[in-house]
């Protein structure tokens, strides 16, 4: 009976996860607000597994210098630091002594989906159509579509990240901008340090 319960719970979380990933593209505001009320850690585990899966798939499609497990571990640390940063910021600027960390982890976890989609698509395109691109008609056409796809994902990422910060911190517009600037100021030296270690992708995911 317990085993059946576990199976049904995991099954329902998988269905909700895929449903939310699609809804995140179609209706990000409503979806993020519904995620903000959830604390299902199985969905977070699915997101983390997807990230791990990406690193292993990407490593199979093209050989990277570092082992996928190292990249995956660093991404997890980076993710936890990001959630911790905004959670602490909320606690520091309001009188709240406690913050619900599970919904915060889930919201920021779903905010990783746009970049994960871009990275997966990029690895797949690298395998199917390896660079360099040429200045032929097909090369130019592909380049325009690729840039267009990247911009669309970037806009999607900005929307989900903005909503994640808004729902976790409950800040208003200006405070969100200031907090993002502060986050960026912390991220630039950290990104440069990772870049010096040739760990280029981590801060972008």
């Amino acid at each position, binding site marked *: 009976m317990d085993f059946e319960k576990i199976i049904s719970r995991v099954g329902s979380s998988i269905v909700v996860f895929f449903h939310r990933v699609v809804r995140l593209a179609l209706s990000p505001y409503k979806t993020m607000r519904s995620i903000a009320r959830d604390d299902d850690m199985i969905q977070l585990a699915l997101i983390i597994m997807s990230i791990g899966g990406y690193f292993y798939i990407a490593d199979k499609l093209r050989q990277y210098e570092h082992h996928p497990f190292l990249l995956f571990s660093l991404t997890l640390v980076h993710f936890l630091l990001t959630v911790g940063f905004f959670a602490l910021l909320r606690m520091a600027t309001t009188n709240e002594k406690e913050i619900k960390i599970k919904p915060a982890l889930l919201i920021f976890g779903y905010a990783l989906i746009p970049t994960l989609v871009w990275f997966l698509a990029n690895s797949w395109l690298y395998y199917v159509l390896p660079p360099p*691109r040429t200045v032929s008609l097909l090369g130019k056409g592909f380049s325009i579509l690729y*840039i267009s796809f990247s911009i*669309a994902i970037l806009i999607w990422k900005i*929307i989900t990240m903005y909503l994640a910060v808004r729902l976790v911190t409950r800040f208003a517009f200006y405070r969100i901008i200031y907090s993002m600037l502060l986050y960026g100021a912390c991220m630039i030296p950290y990104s440069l340090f990772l870049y010096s270690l040739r760990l280029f992708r981590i801060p*972008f995911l």
Partner: protein
Amino acid sequence: MSQKYQASNSNKLDAQLDRIFELKPNDLHLPFLTNIYKLLTSPLKSLPVVYIIPISLGIAVVIYLVFGPIVVRLVSLLQHGF
């Protein structure tokens, strides 16, 4: 029975109202800025894809028209880099 039912409905309504108002609406301190913010964000709340795809395609075409073959090199760089 009826009172219990009413109380339960009232609690549900309170919870729903709390959920709706847990996030205060954004106020940019200047009415015209708040209006612009609302004008820009309301289409992005549901089905933003309808706006995002044409906008991103337009930006990509403009970038190509301005920078020309550099875009092709940028794509090669992005594909190599990530």
